[in-house]
């Protein structure tokens, strides 16, 4: 185990245990693939099938030979990254060209089914029957026959789709506590079987008169009702059987609906459709968004940069101050300073949002102030930054502490030997070394805060909003503003939200690229 005497003599040959491990591992991968691929094909899950096949191929290519050393190390993490971060991004890009949102989530078939199913009307004074579903055939496929008992009179009826409901003699069946439990020549379905066949039974209507039919509700009840609408596949129209009105497919906005003769939307159900680039058009032409985008963008940058700098400066300074080995109680300090980070973010934000209350908040009360923290845009911005500082400085503190500890003692000792003071050592030797380690982290932290939706949403909800201003509040960063636009007004609009995400993503990318140009953090340090 000791690393100090590494076996220098060992040749880089492939040992037998290594071969066994490799074969077992690759075999296991193959087994998983062999098990899942047919299932995925059967369920038509092409996305997962692609993932599975590509992953298997990648594993075989990477781990069956001695080549591709970096790939061997990168693959495990990259696999998860690609599957759970990049694939959703690709799907999101796809959504951005559709009208995906409330009312348009499903297929046209589902929308038609829903419209037709919702048009079933109970006839006035309908009798409610105790129902037993029976079959002379298969309990899943049918054909089904309904045995009905009128709970008031105890009369027993029978009917199916071809034979209208008719009274039968109670002798033909066995009735137990109001339900038909046995009928000669029929198998009575139990509740689970009814449930399994329910899709078919819901569309099942046993005629009782010219206008109404017996319909199944639940596993053991039936009522008289009529389906008002019917759908004709060939003409793609819905017809109201009572009024004779016809509804055809027409466009309202960028989305197709069933419309009445005047072209007015008749049903709110629609379906997922491709809308080309219209989400992007809306994004770039919507006056409200265009007007507010600039201001929101500036504040987003200030917020993200401010949060990173504040948390880092405070966290780093504290780490330095408390890193003196002569200090007693350092553990205590460190443990306490960690605490803000250990509280789940959403409770911190809830607690802080109450602190800022003008009349009842802890801050004004304790400090004897009367500041309208949440009502004044500037103060609200300060409040957001202060809260984010509180939530984020422990992170920087811990990282800096860890980094300080990782700086070899010899380096600082050498500096001190050379006659540098403590402060000088800190500023000229320790800080630059530490910056090498944490600079990339600051970039990542900036990126995180750029989209730090929760910090805004749970604290201020983007507010305060000036009178007459509804698009952007005083503390709205881009993502929180966009989120409100996409999900606030007319229900969830994922298509539009996706378009915005993609645009925001592109913008972030450009920003990051510029940032890299300036700071050169990607340059090698060694």
């Amino acid at each position, binding site marked *: *185990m*000791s690393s100090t005497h590494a*076996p220098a003599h060992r040749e*880089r040959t*492939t*040992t037998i245990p*290594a071969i066994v491990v*490799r074969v077992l*591992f*690759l075999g296991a991968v193959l087994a998983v693939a062999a098990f899942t691929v047919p299932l995925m094909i059967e369920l038509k899950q092409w996305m997962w099938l692609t993932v599975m096949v590509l992953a298997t191929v990648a594993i075989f290519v990477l*781990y069956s*030979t*001695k080549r591709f*050393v970096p790939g*061997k*190390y990168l693959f*495990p993490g990259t696999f998860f990254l690609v599957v759970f971060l990049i694939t959703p991004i690709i799907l999101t890009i796809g959504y951005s060209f559709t009208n995906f949102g*409330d*009312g348009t*989530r*499903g297929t046209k078939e*589902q929308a038609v*089914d*829903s419209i037709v*199913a*919702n*048009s*079933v009307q109970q006839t006035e004074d*309908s009798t409610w029957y105790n129902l037993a579903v029976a079959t002379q055939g298969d309990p899943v496929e049918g054909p089904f026959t309904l045995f009905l008992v009128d709970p008031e009179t105890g009369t027993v009826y029978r009917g199916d789709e071809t034979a209208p409901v008719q009274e039968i003699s109670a002798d033909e069946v066995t009735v137990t506590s109001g339900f038909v439990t046995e009928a000669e020549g029929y198998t009575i379905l139990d*509740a689970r079987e*009814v*449930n399994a066949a*329910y899709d078919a039974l*819901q569309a099942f209507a046993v005629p009782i008169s010219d206008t109404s039919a017996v319909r199944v*509700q*639940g*596993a053991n009840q039936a*009522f008289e009702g009529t389906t008002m609408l019917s759908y004709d596949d060939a003409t793609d129209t819905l017809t109201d059987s009572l009024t004779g009105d016809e509804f055809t497919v027409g466009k309202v906005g960028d989305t197709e609906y069933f419309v009445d003769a005047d072209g007015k939307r008749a049903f*709110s*159900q629609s379906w997922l459709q491709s809308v080309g680039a219209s989400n992007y058009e809306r994004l770039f032409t*919507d006056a*409200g968004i265009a007007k507010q985008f600039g201001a929101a963008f500036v504040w987003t940058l200030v917020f993200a940069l401010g949060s990173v700098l504040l948390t880092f400066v405070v966290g780093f300074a504290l780490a330095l101050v408390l890193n003196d080995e002569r200090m007693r109680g350092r553990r205590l300090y460190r443990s306490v300073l960690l605490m803000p980070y250990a509280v789940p973010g959403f409770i911190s934000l809830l607690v802080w*949002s*109450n602190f800022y*209350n*003008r009349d*009842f*908040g802890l801050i004004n009360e304790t400090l004897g102030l009367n500041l309208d923290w949440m009502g004044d845009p500037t103060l609200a911005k300060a409040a957001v930054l202060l809260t984010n500082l509180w939530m984020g400085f422990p992170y920087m503190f811990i990282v800096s502490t860890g980094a300080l500890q990782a700086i070899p003692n010899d380096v600082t000792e050498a500096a001190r030997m050379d006659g540098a003071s403590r402060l000088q050592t800190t500023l000229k030797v320790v800080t630059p070394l530490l910056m090498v380690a944490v600079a990339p982290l600051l970039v990542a932290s900036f990126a995180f805060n750029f989209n730090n939706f929760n910090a805004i949403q749970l604290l*201020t*909800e983007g507010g305060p*909003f000036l*009178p*007459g201003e*509804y698009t952007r509040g005083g503390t709205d960063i881009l993502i929180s503003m966009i989120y*409100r636009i996409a999900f*606030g*007004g*007319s*229900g*969830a609009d994922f298509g539009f939200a996706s378009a915005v995400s993609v645009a925001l993503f592109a913008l972030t990318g450009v920003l990051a690229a510029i940032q890299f140009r300036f700071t050169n953090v990607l340059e090698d340090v060694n």
Partner: protein
Amino acid sequence: MQIRRQSFLALSGVAAGTALLAACGGGDETGGGGASDAGGASDAGGAEEGAAPARADADLVIWTDEEKAVSLEEPAAAWGEANGLTVAVQIVADDLQGNFVTANQAGNGPDMILAAHDWIGNLVQNGSISPVQLPGNATEDIAPIGIEAVTYDGQTYGVPYAVETLVLFANKALTDAPEPKTVEEMVEAATAGGADNVLALPVGEQGDAYHMEAFYTSAGGYLFGKDSEGNLDPSDVGVGQEGSITAGEKLKELGESGVLSTSITGDNAISLFTDGKAAYLVSGPWALEDIRTAEIDYAMSAVPGFEGLDPAVPFAGVNAFYVAAGGKNPAFAQQFATAVASSPDIVEQMFPKNELPPVSLELQKKLAEDFPEIVKIAELAADGDPMPAIPEMAAIWQPLGQAQANIVGGADPESTMVSAGEEITGQISG
């Protein structure tokens, strides 16, 4: 150093740790990389065995929020047992409506949900719920407002069981007018009584159009007009119209006199009242328990309107059972819905754990003696207006609430209300 490192790995406690150490001695290139990956995979494997028994696929899965779930659990289980079925009541922590629609679409949703009636419009446009027919004898026992609330486009979509509305609570120690008939009377009495705050009505920085609805309607404000058939007409938005501006002017006065304040929020309104700091509170049945715990000597009445203006009409919210359109067990869900509709037994069993005013008239009678306040709220709700269930309502909440909050904070009533109306109309048509 060596010891530290080992126990660090021990802490990690994963197969990866051992695989890593083993590979270390092996000194082979590919074996190492392979083993590490195997280690990573077995992490997930280890957790599988421990934590995931067969998915609890009950015969009937119901989603709802925490409070309703607590009350429903036992009655639902009892019903399930009587019918030979297993029932699972699950709490969805965040955004029940959105998550239900998404899950239902993916075929992984529940069989039923329990939620407020104003979701119906959105659930219908997403094809997420199926109609539920109410047996004839049920409609006689259910208060008309319950039926009205779950009827959407001429179809019934849920089985209503409880109704909520906002009422005015008065702290008798702080006011001589326990049941004020007008806002003016209320303000006067509370000022005379010397309370820190006249009224605890949540406004917040973002506004709260739900709690403000009584005052808004009393001054003549409305949300949507009605078409010839009595359905709400989303092309006729009342925000920005004359009545809403009158309401704005009233709110501004109340804001200036400190009766309404943006610093009173949903987080502190009830506790201001229970702490004896506010003479009046506008809240719903959910506040009762706290008021009782705080031992406040209180009275309860309808939220008053402004003197000489229309009566105040608060929102009524009806809680109902809905049958999911994409559930795995629609038959059992319908069966349970019918059972709830046919007899008040299940709702009665739910009552002790979540005291909501029932819509069942029979149950109201039963509870009248022991829970007079609850029944009174149910009666007051009958005078309320069911929250609009049309999807366009989503466009109302934020701008209207925002405008009201701004006006309470001192903004100009007319221009602010008009701008809110324009925003709403823009969102609905866009």
